[in-house]
């Protein structure tokens, strides 16, 4: 009896292991478990027949069948784990997405290139310690011209063809009147920039009846032309790259003396000459100068104590150069194909 059982156990182990090795999936594994370890299973039936052995024979057979049971259980557990994993792998492998479909999101809108450029300009100057102020667009002749050294019938008025509005007002032709407002409201030292819309009666590829400027003013003790050059060179380098050539050349504005225009090396051709820079290799990007005593006199700033410089630049001009835009009117058409490029 004992030997027969031991024999049976050995056979059972061999057969069970062979069977387990061939199990293809979890359901087959379960069938296998039931066959050997289930309530009616082969191992269970041997365990049940232990009671028929003599007490001397029982421990040995009992030990053998328990070993067989443990081994089978452990192998079965391993197998089930392996099969479960393989099945998961298979089903995951089947869950294939087209990862080239776009992600779900609200597509961001675009900021207008003029606003982006203005922001960039202001950022450079505020980084240098300039405050920001604004002034009205509908102005008086006094602020737009008179206080800036352009009395009535002055030839410099030709430089800016003006829109007039009812009530004796006009649309400011530049942001320079903000200089006057600021100096009327604040004693020096002053270090500020003034962004805003301006208007001139012009309309073609390079002129828009409305455009934008950023004006700047610095008034302090001992401000000289070298300071003007330092600040505006820094601006040009930050705006157009530290390698870009910058030159200052004499010019004329009624409200600055000495006056200068600032050119940067052509960003299109790199200075070798092209259509944009009219073969000169240079692009004019801003006007500037030392504040004219006439202006200081109007706002009662003592020129013995204070001196300063002012500058003004066209935002469209800078944006056109920066983004290589060839027609100023594109900014105001608002064609989405244009706006989406920035």
């Amino acid at each position: 009896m004992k030997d027969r059982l031991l024999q049976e156990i050995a056979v059972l182990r061999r057969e069970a292991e062979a069977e387990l090795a061939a199990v293809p999936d979890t359901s087959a594994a379960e069938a296998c478990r039931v066959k050997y370890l289930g309530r009616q299973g082969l191992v269970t039936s041997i365990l049940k027949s232990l009671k028929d052995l003599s007490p001397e024979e029982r421990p040995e057979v009992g030990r053998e069948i328990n070993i067989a049971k443990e081994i089978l259980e452990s192998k079965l557990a391993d197998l089930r784990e392996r099969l479960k994993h393989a099945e998961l792998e298979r089903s995951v492998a089947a869950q294939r997405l087209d990862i080239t479909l776009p992600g779900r999101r609200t597509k961001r809108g675009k900021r207008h290139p003029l606003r982006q450029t203005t922001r960039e300009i202001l950022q450079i100057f505020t980084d240098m310690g300039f405050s920001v102020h604004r002034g009205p667009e509908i102005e008086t002749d006094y602020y737009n011209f008179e206080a800036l050294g352009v009395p009535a019938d002055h030839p410099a008025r030709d430089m800016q063809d003006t829109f007039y509005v009812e009530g004796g007002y006009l649309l400011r032709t530049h942001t320079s009147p903000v200089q006057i407002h600021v100096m009327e409201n604040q004693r020096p030292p002053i270090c500020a920039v003034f962004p805003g819309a301006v208007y001139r009666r012009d309309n073609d590829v390079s002129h828009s009846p409305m455009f934008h400027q950023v004006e700047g003013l610095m008034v302090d003790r001992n401000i000289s032309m070298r300071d003007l050059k330092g600040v505006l060179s820094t601006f040009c380098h930050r705006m157009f790259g530290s390698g870009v050539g910058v030159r200052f050349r004499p010019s004329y504005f009624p409200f600055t003396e000495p006056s200068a225009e600032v050119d940067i090396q052509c960003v299109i051709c790199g200075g070798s000459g092209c259509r944009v820079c009219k073969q000169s290799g240079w692009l004019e990007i801003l006007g500037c100068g030392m504040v004219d005593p006439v202006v200081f006199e109007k706002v009662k700033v003592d020129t013995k104590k204070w001196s300063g410089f002012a500058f003004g630049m066209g935002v469209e001009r800078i944006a056109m150069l920066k983004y290589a835009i060839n027609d100023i009117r594109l900014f105001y058409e608002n064609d989405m194909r244009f706006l989406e490029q920035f």
Partner: protein
Amino acid sequence: MRVPLEWLKEFVEIRVKPERLAHLLTMGGIEVESVESLGRETIMELGITPNRGDCLSIAGVAREVAAVTGARLKPRKFAAPRGEGRMADRVKVSVKSRSRCIRYTARAIEGVKVGPSPSWMAARLAACGIRSINNVVDASNYVMLETGHPLHVFDMARIRGSRIEVSLVESARQFTTLDGVVRTLEKGDLAICDGEGPVAVAGIMGGGDSEVSQSTTSVLLESACFEGKGIRRTSRRLGLASESSRRFERGVDPNSVLAALNRLTELIVDTAEGTPAADCVDIYPAKIAPARLALTEDAVERMLGENIPAASIAKILTRLGLDAKRGAKGRISVSVPTFRPDISRPVDLIEEVARIYGYDRLEGKTPLVCMSPIVRPRFMDQEQAICEALAGAGMSEVVLYGFVDDRAQAPFAGLGPAAVKIANPLSQDQGVMCTSLLPGLMDAARLNVNRQRTDLKLFAFQHIYHRPAGAGPSDEPRSVAGLLLGRRDPSSWERSREQLDFYDAKGVVDAVLDSLGLVQISVYQRGEPPAFLHPGRFAHVLCGNTRVGVVGQLHPDVAVKWGLEHEVFVFELHFDLIAEKAQAVVPRFSELSRFPFVQRDIAIVVDERIPLVEVEKTIQESGVELLDGVNIFDIYRGKGLAEGRKSIAISLRFSREDRTLTDDEVVAAQQKIVSELSRTLKAELRE
């Protein structure tokens, strides 16, 4: 100003190549816009700034060339040929307006033979862009280009009454200028008159009647100095700008008027023969003397930030033709010739020094100033926040002109303030300043739709303009407006067919309000609809108790005016009003609960006309303290519901801060809410 180099060389030595000369002039403040070759001739095109009237001449440019290259000027003296007879016997000249006519000189030439100009003269004029007419007229243009003095030649036979009088027009009258246009001279215009009336608009253009023609045999030459502002006023009013008026406006040298007359006499006699008068008329009652200015080395250093020794300063000024004398302690006294009326103050001299010294030689530096914190305009942060929120909500920014078509703006005007009118618009469609950004947004929408772009989400953030009620400056508040049209998400692969509707526009407004922390105090209200909005699909937006804007579907009538057959959704908010409100909003922390909440979903059926906000309000006000949140998560109409009824699915959340809730409490709370809904709104619980 076009300058042929060969002509220039008659006045100054030029030893540098044209390109080098162009560079030196440009860097000295006379901008050379181009250098072109025309046959053997090299011509520079100069951009002359309005302060440098003296450089509207070959002689003036020659002085600049001498200054920037260090070359020597070639002095040229012109003398009128000897003549016969006295001017007093031929014509009586008088100046009535001495403030407007600073100097007047004239000379007659008899026996001239009017004919074609010599080719050299015609060629030079052509190179400068002036058409050849005849030898006499060409001579006057030639001398103008050479000296900068505008000159005029009258047909002596057409001067009536042997009289010339420079006087102001006393009352409006017609006058035909030599371009054949009949113009109206008005009181205060300066005219050259003969015995019977005007023969020229002084300093601007001569008259057709006294023009030199092929049959002319005797001429009267005029060289004068007229006051610039008066010339400019008349020229602007007549819309008549000439080579002559351009120079007078910018100022001519009164002390070389006579030299120009002599040069012209010489040239006419050379090319058209004739015998000049032995003398000339010269009326110059108040002689203009050179300005005397004092400059110091220190003042130059203070302005430029660099020490330039007095000796160098004096040398630069001398090169410019100024008379500079050095005194003690770095002082320099300068006498400024009258050909440079733009130099009247020491600072003007400093500019001269700087530009000839070279702006390039001044080294840039960082200003030494006391540090102070920067300030930004009020609401700049709010502006930034709103624009970011709008971009985040998928809206793209447009920039609109400040002016619009008055007619296009009419539907949007409503009861708001009136628009500011432009007195001299470029065109009717830019006739008034905008009082709303919506017309501009509609224009942008139309343009895009016409270019096959039919899904749009646009916003604008800029000023609008209100005419003041009385006198005084206009109000320029800022507005933020948006327009939505077409599909909600055209690039989506799942939802690309969904059309935008009212709630998309409202959602964008919510995003704007949220960016300023205003959602809690904002409400949407019906009310009187503005004419441009769909009366059933619009809302007033209120913050606190202030109306801050509107949102809604554009009235189909209005959309059609722009050729848009689409449903267009718009909003416009007063930026300043909402920015103001944003100031006060500071978040306040409330303790986080450590106990779980309980969520119960219910569905109720109510009348279609009951707005959602009423349902929420009823729940909130039902007096259930445990209520911690209400969320509407579905609305259903149709099958299973009676006509005019809707089902609303609501998620209720209950909690207490001090302990976990019991089932009984939650059931009681939910019961209370349901009965309150049924009592107030006649809501039925949907099972």
